[in-house]
């Protein structure tokens, strides 16, 4: 269906990936609630599709040998959730960590509640439910032991995997009493530990639960699944989004030894949502034969309307569009009047190209499609969307679809889209139910993906005679992720606006944000930290540019713009989305933003005297309800070659569950930020992606990554504070901190990513 010129009531509760659950192609409007039908707004996990489940008998099992198994219903992609969720249960349960195991839940939201692993919110949404389940299990064990001993439950303690009755010196292991405990009814309420009693939560030193499997090659990723009778496929997909096969000749491909069958897959017309791109599949007895068979295919493509998409001309068009007014998405004071009366105006435009998530495990999935059922093994961030799309495309009932969630070899948003799993399902059907593994080659991953958008940001500042910043205008043009769900979506969705554009927490009297239209010509998707990337790059570069123009210290000037410590209701500054969180619990706290800036400045020894060719840059950004600041330290040699000796990053994410993994996520966020800022870009010519592998699409390597990354964790004052995310928010401030550092080191201001292009020559 098409959906032209929608009437736009306020978009309600567009949690970042709310589209995923049961929303069919083109029904983006589902998230637009008509006021008369609006229900009471739910927040956080409860506001997610299929909500939260809290059932100790479902999530926690204790075997007779004492092994505690915690079910992890989130996808593990390096963020450590398979360690961190069990940690929470083990703490409240007083379990011995050495006897705790994790079991991966299959995709089943009716049973487990929402399973979309995205938005940096697994711990934010599940900390309390997992604490309560751990405490409930402990209470049931205590009750069972007390009953068996004939003593009051209040006299029985749980101590490191044992129940102890001090008065009678009796003790019994968890395993020995587990069966009796399981027979008890679940208590309606339980007492949680005081944070001072935590033994795992917030503590260092726990090894990752998957460490041994990973270091021995036994960890099972999606691409590693093997089934009896399995065959292997690669697919030649239309090189242009919206294109399809005009004609093909498979005669040579069929001659390749090992090739079993050539299968034509229908192309899903744009907006293709999570539907397959279509094309010609080569099914073979091994991956190599399938790849060789694909090389031998002769295909003529019908490119369709996106065949003219070219990055050069698109950039020029975006430049023109941000120089004209766009849709006003935040308006505070009177920017036009303030600009007109300004003694001085400063303006700048910033460009961020398309980026590919490029997880090291490319999309890969195995599906066995039966007559009226199907079973998938897949590296998916979205098990429920996988189920619903398999049911739809294979024509089987939803309850007959089983989705096994494997380990993910990186996700970064790419694996929130199950198109590759649907492909495997269609091919299994074409192979009469034989299990089919579809592997995306790296070329496929870069050329047929769901890219981070391409963006142009124009910023204008008006200063009065005293140098005070009185007017701020930000125009942000980029094709929206909404464009994969509905036709003619040329404006950002609410969640994209709430990623650093409208929710600018600066103390400036006149602020306006506008969004000129931008049309998508390729599939746009979530990329770790999403629209925060371009918004933080522009805003935080601009702040230092203004500071430098005024001859002020960039850190002091950033603090001045943020203004005094205060709590801002996001809705009051145009952000109705607020990451799906209750604005009362999650205001924007400028005091915490100031705090991370001070912490990172201290850690990086901001303000120190530097030799020639060396420079520090600073940036801060609030995203995924966490506060982050970064200082980059760069060094330019005589030829202009840039090295990054050190990056410091400070985070205030509220209470910390697994500090070691928070630190790891910050380190990783910094390095992905370095890739985005310095190296990576996807460009188009004639509708086709130019880059094909890691030679053209460059990412940070050991020698181009910062030699040192220092993480500064700002401790939470108490565990009643809401949690912030850690998977994504490390990324956005890195790019501007680097641009600011390079400007400090070289005098050269770079406003277009990746910076390596501007540095060359």
């Amino acid at each position, binding site marked *: 269906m098409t959906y032209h010129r929608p009437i736009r009531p306020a978009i309600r509760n567009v949690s970042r990936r709310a589209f995923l659950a049961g929303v069919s192609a083109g029904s983006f409007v589902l998230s637009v609630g008509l006021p008369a039908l609006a229900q009471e707004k739910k927040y956080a996990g409860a506001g997610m599709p299929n909500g939260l489940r809290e059932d100790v008998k479902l999530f926690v099992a204790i075997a007779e040998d004492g092994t505690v198994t915690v079910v992890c219903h989130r996808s593990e992609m390096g963020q450590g959730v398979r360690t961190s969720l069990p940690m929470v249960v083990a703490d409240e349960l007083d379990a011995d960590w050495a006897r705790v195991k994790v079991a991966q839940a299959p995709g089943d939201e009716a049973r487990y509640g929402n399973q979309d692993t995205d938005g940096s919110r697994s711990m934010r949404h599940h900390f309390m439910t997992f604490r309560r389940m751990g405490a409930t299990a402990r209470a049931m064990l205590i009750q069972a032991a007390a009953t068996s001993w004939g003593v009051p439950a209040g006299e029985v303690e749980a101590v490191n995997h044992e129940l102890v009755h001090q008065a009678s010196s009796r003790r019994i292991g968890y395993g020995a009493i587990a069966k009796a405990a399981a027979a008890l009814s679940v208590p309606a309420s339980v007492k949680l530990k005081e944070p001072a009693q935590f033994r795992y939560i917030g503590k260092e030193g726990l090894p*990752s639960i*998957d460490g041994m499997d990973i270091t021995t090659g036994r960890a099972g990723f999606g691409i590693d699944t093997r089934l009896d009778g399995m065959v292997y496929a690669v697919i030649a997909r239309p090189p242009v989004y919206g294109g399809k096969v005009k004609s093909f000749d498979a005669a040579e491909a069929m001659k390749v030894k090992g090739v079993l069958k050539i299968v034509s897959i229908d192309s899903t017309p744009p907006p293709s949502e999570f539907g397959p791109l279509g094309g010609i599949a080569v099914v073979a007895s091994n991956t190599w034969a399938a790849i060789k068979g694909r090389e031998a295919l002769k295909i003529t493509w019908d490119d369709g309307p996106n065949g003219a998409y070219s990055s050069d001309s698109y950039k020029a068009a975006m430049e023109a569009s941000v120089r004209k007014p766009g849709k006003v998405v935040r308006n505070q004071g009177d920017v036009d009047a303030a600009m007109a009366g300004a003694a001085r105006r400063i303006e700048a435009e910033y460009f961020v190209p398309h980026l590919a998530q490029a997880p*090291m495990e490319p999309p890969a999935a195995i599906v066995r499609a039966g007559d009226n059922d199907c079973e998938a093994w897949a590296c998916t961030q979205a098990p429920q969307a996988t189920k619903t799309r398999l049911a739809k495309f294979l024509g089987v009932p939803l309850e007959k679809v089983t989705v096994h969630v494997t*380990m993910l070899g*990186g996700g970064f948003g790419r694996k929130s889209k199950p198109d590759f799993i649907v492909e495997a399902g269609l091919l299994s059907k074409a192979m009469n139910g034989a299990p089919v593994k579809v592997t995306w080659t*790296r070329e496929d991953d870069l050329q047929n993906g769901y890219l981070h958008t391409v963006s142009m940001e124009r910023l204008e500042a008006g200063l009065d005679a005293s140098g005070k910043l009185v007017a701020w205008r930000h125009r942000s043009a980029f094709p929206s992720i909404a464009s994969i769900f509905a036709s003619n979506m040329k404006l950002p969705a609410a969640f994209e606006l709430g990623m650093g554009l409208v929710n600018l927490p600066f103390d400036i009297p006149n602020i306006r944000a506008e969004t000129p239209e931008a049309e998508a010509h390729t599939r746009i998707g979530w990329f770790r930290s999403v629209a925060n990337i371009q918004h933080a790059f522009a805003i935080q570069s601009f702040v230092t540019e203004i500071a430098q123009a005024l001859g002020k210290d960039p850190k002091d000037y950033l603090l001045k713009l943020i203004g005094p410590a205060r709590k801002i209701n996001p809705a009051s500054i145009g952000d109705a989305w607020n990451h799906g969180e209750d604005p009362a619990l999650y205001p924007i706290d400028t005091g915490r933003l100031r705090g991370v800036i001070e912490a990172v400045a201290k850690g990086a020894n901001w303000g120190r005297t530097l030799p020639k060719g060396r420079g520090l840059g600073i940036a801060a950004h609030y995203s995924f309800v966490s506060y982050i600041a970064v200082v980059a330290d760069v060094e330019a040699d005589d030829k202009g070659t840039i090295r990054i000796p050190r990056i410091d990053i400070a985070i205030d994410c509220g209470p910390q569950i697994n500090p070691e993994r928070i630190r790891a*996520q910050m380190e990783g966020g910094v390095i992905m930020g370095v890739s985005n800022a310095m190296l990576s870009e996807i460009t188009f010519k004639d509708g086709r992606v130019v880059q094909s592998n*890691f030679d053209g699409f460059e990412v940070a390597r*050991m020698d181009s990554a910062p030699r040192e990354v220092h993480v500064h964790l700002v401790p939470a004052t108490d565990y009643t504070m809401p949690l912030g995310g850690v998977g994504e928010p490390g990324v956005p401030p890195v790019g501007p901190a680097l641009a600011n550092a390079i400007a400090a080191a070289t005098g050269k201001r770079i406003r277009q990513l990746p910076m390596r292009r501007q540095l060359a020559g």
Partner: protein
Amino acid sequence: MAFTIKLNGQDRSVDVEGDMPLLWVLRDVLGMTGTKYGCGAALCGACTVHIDGVAVRSCQTPVSDAEGRAVTTIEGLSRDGTHPVQVAWRELNVAQCGYCQVGQIMSAAALLADNPKPSDDDIDAAMSGNICRCGTYPRIRAAIHRVAAGGRR
């Protein structure tokens, strides 16, 4: 065609096309999935194995080139995950998603066998062929230094 390789100390014969990369022989024919596909073009290092003790990219090594030679994969680096590099990797919680880490470990093991006390520049030179998209480079560097210093400190 039949090819015999000495895989993790045992002779293994496979009947495949000679141009099939060792990577796919290991993964699809022999079912040894510890060695990973990442790029198919020797650009990312996920598929790193040792041939006669030297780190090579198995995605660009035709099985015919491995004929009669000693191939070591992650499954054969140690019997039980106790190679010093594997131990250091766990002690420092190097891995995030873990997918590239097999290749990283194989490259690091080859580096340390060749150069027991690598400098930071040596590490850059030996490890820059291995991409980690999660960004574990600082910990990989630290883990290599830890092994060079004799393990746990």
